[in-house]
């Protein structure tokens, strides 16, 4: 077997790969956040009382779920600058193009997730908020959104992991992320296994970290006081009985 551990090890520690990993994570996080915000508004539009507003949101979902993300990225990077001359300037970087492409594509999926989360909040919760004199905006922020977030965390976590892998598509628009970095190294050395393995290792580590973060986030949204013994394996040490996660002091 011809696997040069030395090359693999050097690749892992190289600043090139580290930088690639950084770009990968940054792009995934930025795109997921933007997609979630955009998806939230699309979901609100989807549940709107106005038919034209619902249609706009529906058409958006239809278009961006139908077109492959790879095609969207190529379109934004190659075709858009032909249509809009301003995009030929330097500020239109592969990172920006990738960010836009991944965000708009993902927003269509996030809209579905958030829509179903919105629908699963008990309608009487809105009534209770109203009865206290909250405006629709206050009720959304203080009552509905926290409950939507809790319902949406697990599927959004999955989406983020998928997003992380989708960033590798931006190698076609020459963003220096993990896959591009390994391909460039392979072009120079023909050591396929070593560099692919190095990239794969990075993805594994990053996804593992994300999974741990998701678990912790889900626990924060459990809405129970942590009593001794209930979750002894995971509970943090400073959780004295009666100290709720949201306890004001």
């Amino acid at each position, binding site marked *: 077997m011809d696997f040069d551990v030395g090359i693999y090890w050097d690749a892992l520690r190289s600043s090139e790969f580290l930088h690639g990993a950084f770009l990968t994570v940054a792009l995934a996080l930025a795109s997921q956040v933007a997609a979630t915000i955009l998806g939230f508004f699309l979901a609100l539009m989807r549940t709107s009382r106005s038919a034209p507003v619902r249609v706009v949101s529906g058409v958006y979902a239809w278009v961006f779920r139908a077109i492959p993300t790879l095609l969207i990225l190529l379109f934004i990077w190659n075709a858009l600058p032909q249509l809009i001359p301003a995009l030929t300037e330097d500020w239109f970087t592969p990172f920006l193009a990738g960010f836009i492409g991944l965000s708009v594509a993902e927003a269509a999926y996030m809209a579905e997730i958030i829509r179903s989360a919105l629908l699963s909040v*008990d309608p*009487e*919760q809105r*009534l*209770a*908020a*109203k*009865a*206290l*004199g*909250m*405006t*629709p905006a*206050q009720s959304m922020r*203080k*009552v509905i959104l*926290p*409950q939507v977030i*809790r319902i949406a965390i697990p599927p959004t976590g999955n989406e983020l992991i998928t997003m992380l892998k989708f960033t590798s598509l931006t190698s076609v628009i020459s963003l220096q992320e993990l896959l591009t970095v390994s391909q460039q190294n392979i072009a120079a050395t023909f050591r396929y296994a070593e560099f692919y393995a190095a990239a794969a290792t990075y993805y594994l580590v990053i996804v593992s970290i994300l999974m741990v973060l998701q678990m912790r986030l889900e626990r924060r*949204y459990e*809405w*129970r*006081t942590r009593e001794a013994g209930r979750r002894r394996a995971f509970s943090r040490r400073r959780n004295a009985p*009666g*100290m*709720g996660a*949201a*306890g*004001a*002091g």
Partner: protein
Amino acid sequence: MSEQAVLEAKGITKVYEGRTVVDSVDLNVGRGEVKAIIGPSGSGKSTFLRCLALLEIPDGGELKLEGKPIGNAPGRTEWTRERRLARDRQHIGMVFQRFNLFPHLTAEGNVQTALVTVKGVPRHEARERARQMLDRVGLLHRAHAYPSELSGGQQQRVAIARALVMEPKVMLFDEPTSALDPELVREVLDVIEELAEAGTTMVVVTHELEFARGIASEMVMMDQGSVIERGDPDRFFTSPEHPRTRQFLAHME
């Protein structure tokens, strides 16, 4: 009649899909008065109460709170109308059949949240007032518990505290014990009785006749969207006039 009605409802009418659910109902609630509304399910009593709480906008009739018209405000846009309704609703406390506590907030958080968001009370002061209110319903020791960790009776008592802390001019109760296990009913009724004794102005929709008789200054019997009989509780229970009332009371024994 008391000197000035806190809440005055005149000719309240609500129509759903061509069906008149509440048909021209009047109700005057004076300061410190307790009105108990009873009637078979589907008689429109809950819908009427929701109209009083401005959670339903009546199709007809008018509402006055301390002499000032509320609800049905002819705002120019939906947005301004909603804001006005929200402002009016602050002064009317509502307790729901299914408690509707906010599951993501502790008991204390549930009670304090509207004080902070709606009334703009500073957080530390809101917290203090929330704790006083929880103490009043006997749940200060559960201040940091989440709704899922409380019994139904405790949840309903927190819900009462949540409404009370806003210092509403009138408290509305929509079958506050109907969703409770029988052994938990008493603790909630005790709290409401204590409020009545303290002079809280209230409208209570209930199936607990004994309880209603004990606290009400006036009984109101609804059937098929209309008030068919009303009057002093003792007279109401001992010699009801309307045959439907007699039938209903006999059935509930």
